[in-house]
């Protein structure tokens, strides 16, 4: 499903060069639930962003669904992210000025859809994460766990084949974290969604199919 080949990422600022990733090669199968662990600053987010086409690698090749992604235009990349990928972030990244339902509908705005379809799909996604009773709330009126569930609903509303989650439980206590983890596991099991998750929590990682450890930008396991 996702194939990384010899990925290298160098961040250049005026004064320093940071080698965030070096020669990472990774094959992720369809339907796999993969977790990535490693100490802070080792390049986990960078790797996930590159997989999600949010950032370009300095060197190397990324194939998603057997399709080369280097040299895609801005418009093609946007389409790709919209149709194939769903993102979940540690800090949720909800739009505070939009109600829960509008937040979840957001990805559908960037593909051709009617207002009715959008509402229907968003309502369904919210039902899957157990938030049917919060559609008219604003994000500020929700708890952290609820916010993250809204973010999951937003990630799955477009029925993407891949979900990339960067420390989705990082801001939550273990009970809430487990709830989120259960939703992801359920998603992986019933819909066959491929999930790549960055985590600091060994217990979470143990529940996934495979664990990749990074250290200083390199894969160690």
């Amino acid at each position, binding site marked *: 499903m996702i194939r990384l080949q010899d990925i290298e990422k160098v961040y250049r600022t005026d004064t320093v060069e940071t080698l965030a990733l070096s020669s990472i090669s990774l094959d992720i199968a369809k339907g796999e639930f993969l977790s990535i662990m490693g100490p802070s600053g080792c390049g986990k987010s960078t790797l996930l*962003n590159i997989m999600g086409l*949010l*950032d370009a690698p300095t060197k190397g090749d990324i194939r998603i669904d057997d399709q080369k992604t280097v040299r895609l235009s*801005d418009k093609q990349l946007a389409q790709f*992210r919209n149709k194939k990928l769903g993102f979940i972030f540690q800090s949720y*990244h909800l*739009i505070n*000025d939009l*109600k829960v339902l509008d937040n979840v509908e957001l990805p559908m705005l*960037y593909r051709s859809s009617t207002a009715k379809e959008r509402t229907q799909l968003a309502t369904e996604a919210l039902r899957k994460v157990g938030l049917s009773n919060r559609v008219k709330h604003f994000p500020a009126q929700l708890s952290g766990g609820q916010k993250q569930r809204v973010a999951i609903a937003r990630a799955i509303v477009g029925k993407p084949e891949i979900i990339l989650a960067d420390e989705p439980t990082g801001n939550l206590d273990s009970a809430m974290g487990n709830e989120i983890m259960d939703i992801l596991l359920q998603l992986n099991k019933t819909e066959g969604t491929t999930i790549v998750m960055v985590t600091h929590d060994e217990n979470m990682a143990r529940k996934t199919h495979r664990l990749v450890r990074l250290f200083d930008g390199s894969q160690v396991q």
Partner: protein
Amino acid sequence: MFRHLFTLIWNKKKQNFLLITEMLISFLVVFAVFTLVVFNYRNYRKPMGLEYENVWVVNYNNTLKTTNADSVMLFYEGLKQIIKSMPQVREVSYTSANIPFTQNSMMNGLDYKGKHINPNYCQSDEEYKNVLQIKMKEGRWFGKEDMNVSKRPIVINSTMKEQLFGKESATGKLIGDSKDLKIIGVIDDVKMKGDYTDAGAWLYVKIDTSSMPGIGRILVSVVPGTDAAFESRLYKTIANTMKDSNIEIEHLTNKLKDINYFALVPMIILSIVAGFLIINVALGLFGVLWYNINKRRSEIGLRRAIGATSGSVSAQLVSEALILATLSLIAGSFFAIQFPLLNVFDLPAGVYLTALALSVVFIYILVLICSLYPGRQAAAIYPAVALHED
């Protein structure tokens, strides 16, 4: 997408209210300036309606001891003949102090069939039209046949004719409270107050013997190229005839310059003030949009992550600004349209409507310029970078 933008704008109504108010105020200022500019320009485009080059004005005051009307008349007719006999002089006319291009005004209310107007009253004589080369629209100017008639003959200008009679002909009509004024002709409009001021309504009466001592101006049209030497000769000739009178000779060309300046100064001052205001508003708009966009970097990153192209992000931000502009322009137009509806300053409705259209376009362009750069800047943000910051 539009519905989405409206939802977003509506949910942020508090922040947006300030921006809309700012746009509304700048719209009203711009509207005021454009109204003045359009009005001045429309007046400027109209023909002057008179020949002012080579026309001089003699200011004098009556110093005759006699009050006998016939001897007064005889004296001034004699003076006219003396001036007219000079080779450089073409035509000579007596007139009241509201000559072309002065601030002097003499107005009098007048009612006609339920209409009330306030025309300028000008006293003149048979030669006045020729001195200034005014064109007749209908009827005729004063002549010898106006002696000893029962109704007082008057000539009016086109503006006054339209105000009273619309498209009808005015010649032969009787006006005035006791129907004692008979219109014998209508002249083309003359911009008596300079290039930038509209003609207004004018009514010309013939100077009669009893009012002659109160007249204080002589208009003299001279042949082109007449020089200062002749001017001093003219001065001496008049001074010799009118002992003890304060005589002063002016040129209409100079008076036109002065009165044009007078009309333009308020417009220039207002434009400068408006210019500063607009710069202020532009910077304010730019600042607010810039601030908004920087505050929304994480939103921008998120939108990019879920499928927005950089183009659609900048289009969204620019559209939001333009929607806000549209809201304030709707409110602003509602205020602006009251001016022609209530006829606040007695300007033609066309002036207001042109100014309204220009102001709308102006504000849209201003908002577009102010939002385009921040919008493009926002679109250039890398999604990963925007999401990283929190």
